[in-house]
């Protein structure tokens, strides 16, 4: 549990706004590469860890979790040291007023997102969710000072530091999808190669939040026989029905969809049951909203399954997961790795 939290905290601190994952992907490959046969970062920013089976002609299994997070880019530098930004990925703009940000220019710059003072609020505007075009960031610098430190296009992230809560819950920004990257890493890094039934390619992919293309390209390159895509899913809470969510603390989610391979999915459920690992199911008939669809139709077609970790408050600075669920997902993955004939 402690080691899992440590790795998760480390992952959450890495700067990986969609499209700008390279530097962090390289650092990731360096830090964890020693546990695998091979680790590399492709030109697209996908980080791939490879651990091969000792069996001859072992089938290829791809496990994908995306590394990128939603964020922003600087779109213009205004008078009095304010910045306009443009959103990358689907941001929840309700969280913006009075939030803190970090601008990654020549150095890290602290900023605050302006909120509308009461005397300037109209009846209409106070009831509407903030629009991206109206967001301004206050850095406290002058325009000249700022222009020397920051350029149009520099990435910006909201501050949402990693924090431990009671009962094994953690809060952070970017648990989508770093909680799954964590599960994938811990499932494989210490695995005994002699037991593996597959050559395993763990893809920590880029740009899921902006078009899901990173995983598509890396899957086309690797040409796996099977793929398991892991991403976060909605956790049960107020106003979210039981039919569109899974419970935090209830174990990993296994997705049922017309867009995954049914036989493979059922086999995974059986594996979890046989190994006494708790899991939940969630049904998403015609859209998983993950890298699954593009991996499925990549190349000449791939048999896929989707698994998930329940996550609260998706795309905010206070996303929450239960560490127990991260470890349950890792347990199921470990059991899949040693099961032949899937």
């Amino acid at each position, binding site marked *: 549990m402690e080691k899992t939290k440590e790795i998760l905290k480390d992952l959450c601190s890495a700067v990986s706004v969609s499209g700008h994952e390279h530097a962090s992907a390289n650092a990731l490959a360096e830090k964890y590469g020693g546990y695998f046969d091979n680790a590399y970062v492709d030109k697209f920013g996908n980080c791939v860890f490879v651990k091969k089976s000792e069996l001859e002609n072992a089938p290829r299994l791809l496990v994908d979790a995306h590394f990128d997070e939603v964020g922003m880019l600087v779109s213009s530098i205004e008078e009095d040291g304010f910045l306009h930004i443009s959103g990358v990925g689907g941001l929840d703009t309700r969280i913006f007023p009075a939030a803190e940000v970090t601008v990654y220019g020549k150095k890290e710059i602290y900023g605050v997102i302006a909120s509308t003072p009461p005397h300037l609020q109209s009846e209409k505007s106070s009831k509407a969710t903030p629009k991206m075009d109206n967001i301004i960031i206050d850095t406290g610098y002058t325009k000249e000072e700022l222009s020397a430190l920051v350029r149009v296009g520099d990435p910006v992230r909201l501050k949402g530091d990693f924090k431990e809560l009671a009962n094994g819950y953690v809060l952070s920004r970017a648990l989508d999808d770093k909680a799954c990257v964590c599960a994938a890493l811990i499932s494989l890094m210490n695995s005994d190669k002699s037991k593996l039934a597959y050559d395993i390619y763990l893809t920590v992919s880029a740009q899921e939040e902006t078009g899901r293309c990173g995983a598509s390209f890396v899957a086309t390159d690797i040409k796996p026989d099977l793929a398991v895509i892991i991403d976060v899913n909605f956790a049960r809470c107020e106003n979210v029905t039981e*039919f569109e969510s899974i419970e935090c603390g209830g174990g990993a989610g296994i997705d049922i969809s017309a867009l995954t391979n049914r036989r493979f999915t059922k086999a995974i459920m059986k594996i979890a049951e046989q190994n006494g690992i708790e899991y939940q199911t969630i049904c998403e*008939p015609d859209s998983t909203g993950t890298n699954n669809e593009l991996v499925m139709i990549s190349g000449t077609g791939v048999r896929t399954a989707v698994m998930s970790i329940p996550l609260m408050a998706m795309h905010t600075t206070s996303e929450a997961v239960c560490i127990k669920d991260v470890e349950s997902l890792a347990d199921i993955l470990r059991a899949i790795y040693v099961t032949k004939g899937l």
Partner: protein
Amino acid sequence: MKELLKELCSAFGPSGCVDSVRDIIVKNLSELNPTTDPLGAVTVRIANEGAPKLMISAHMDEVGLMATGITSDGCVKFGCVGGIDPLVLSSKRVVSENGVSGAILSKPIHLQSADERKARTEIKDMYIFIGARNKEEAKELVSVGDYFAFDSEYVEFGNGFIKAKALDDRLGCAVMCTLAKNLVKVKDKIPYDLYFSFTDREELGFSGAFAAAERIKPDYAIVIESTAVADICGVAPKSRVAALGKGGAISFADRATIYDRDYMRFVTDILERENIKYQIKQYVSGGNDASHIQRSACGAKVLAISAPSRYIHSPSDVVSYSDVVSIYDAVYAVITNKDLPFEQAKEKI
């Protein structure tokens, strides 16, 4: 072909769950060595090494529903698999992959408020009733993730009309099976390396046709489909699209594909010469697997020929059988025509 069409329409096959349909096709074409790919597509090849590749394509899947949850009252909440207009669902009969019958219900109008009655009922306010009174009883019959299809009988009516579920695109499959079996008898007359591809998940937009085309890498492709028309009472002539009974409808463009004009002309010239009935769609609407095949690999010249269909994506899809026959005749004529389509020349300086 009609018997096969009836058998295919009656089979259970929403996107992602087409085993029953596949079994019929594989059995029907067993002598032609059908192969299956990772996404469940079936391919039959009438080989002619070195000749230009022609891919004939239809999809096995139909629109359907999937159980997303079971309420404490024993009702089954569902989501759609493929595009279904909520307006066609009220009170329709459905059947699950395990043969459990049910009906799609929602709050009776007597109990609705005046405002509720004005708006259409959304899927989230509907449920499938299977005769269970509580969650435990329901769970014995249905599990989350079970598929449901329309429970709709195949009926011949009027002047050669057919009503059934899944005419989109089992009629394409029926035409293709019949073509394959008849063409193999005259394979020496065929100037193409011919592939018949039956795919899954066309109704979901992540069609198996893309992966199939990537594997086959066709030069040409003909997609046999259904197309929604409105040749019914009260619709202005400009909005009717095409008419039942006037032959297969060929599109110059739809929402997903702009068809190559030279290839279209090549095909329509053959049909004119052979006196085979066809029509040109008089609207830009719909989309099909031609889009995926056209843009796969290095590109292919594609054509779509579709049976005009009323009430598409409902339990009561209606076509004219004569159009299905016209389509068979048309594709047969194109395949056996000894002249190849105009080839774009590669110029080197």
